[in-house]
């Protein structure tokens, strides 16, 4: 399995739609402070089913919707779409290509879709259970988190091992 494409529409600082295409190997994301690089990492976490707003640096659900700026009004919705290549059957679903969609509105309503079919958040989270892409698999390392990996207490370190087992 591999990442194929990531689309952000209205997610945090991405008021205008952007599309990232992924190949094999290393994709580097570069740019000035505050340009939106870590927001891209947040988008992947969010679309994979992250429920803790705190780990997306927010304090309420609508913090991930473009909040407006001096020159632009706030948006009413945020959407992230992640497309994965799945012909090796890594994900327990019968598709060669899997697209996960997550949407949230200012009203607090959310949409979840797997290959354009509406589903629950739980269905998305279940898709990635035991893949190591969950919260404690350490597949997504946030900014400033690298030192914390060594300072974890014995219990957290245990759960890291159990996730790896």
């Amino acid at each position: 399995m591999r990442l194929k494409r990531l689309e952000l529409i209205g997610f945090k600082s991405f008021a205008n739609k952007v599309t990232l295409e992924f190949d094999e190997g290393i994709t580097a994301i570069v740019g000035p402070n505050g340009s939106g690089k870590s927001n891209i990492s947040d988008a992947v976490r969010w679309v994979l089913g992250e429920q803790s707003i705190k780990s997306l640096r927010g304090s309420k659900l609508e913090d991930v919707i473009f909040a407006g700026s001096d020159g632009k009004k706030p948006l009413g919705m945020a959407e992230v779409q992640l497309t994965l290549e799945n012909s090796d059957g890594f994900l327990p679903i019968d598709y060669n290509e899997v697209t996960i969609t997550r949407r949230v509105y200012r009203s607090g309503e959310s949409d979840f879709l797997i290959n354009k079919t509406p589903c629950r958040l739980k269905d998305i989270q279940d898709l990635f259970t035991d893949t190591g892409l969950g919260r404690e698999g350490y597949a997504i390392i946030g900014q400033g988190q690298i030192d914390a990996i060594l300072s974890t207490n014995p219990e957290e370190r245990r759960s890291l091992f159990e996730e790896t087992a």
Partner: protein
Amino acid sequence: SAERFMETYEQLRAEFKLVFGELFEGGAADIILVDPEDPLNTGIEIIAQPPGKKLQNLALLSGGERSLTAIALLLAIRRVKPTPFCILDEVDAALDEANLERFADILQGFAKTTQFLIITHRQATMEKADRLYGVTMGESATSQLISVKLS
């Protein structure tokens, strides 16, 4: 189960020692079970000794040495339990130029079997990329993207 835990532990320990040695060009590291008789409850200790130095508490290591040790642990986890992709956000921030080069080389090796999405400000890391995305703040505080395919 206790058996599976011990099996994972042995693999992780072996990989950690290997990657640590590559990143530090020497030295020694280990993962120790505080109570080997009780695998399902034991605490886990991480030991790291840069080349030529005396083995001391992890906390006494320098910022860059701690980064490198954490990276070794991360990459060891990736070898024991491969994920299709891995996202790293500025894990190279504290590394000096020499350690950065070594990190970038070793990352390139791992990238043969894992997709890496790496956010970085460091030149040496960018140079290993197969594809580069530039992110900038455009007008009205809106992020924009430029794509550069390198290989």
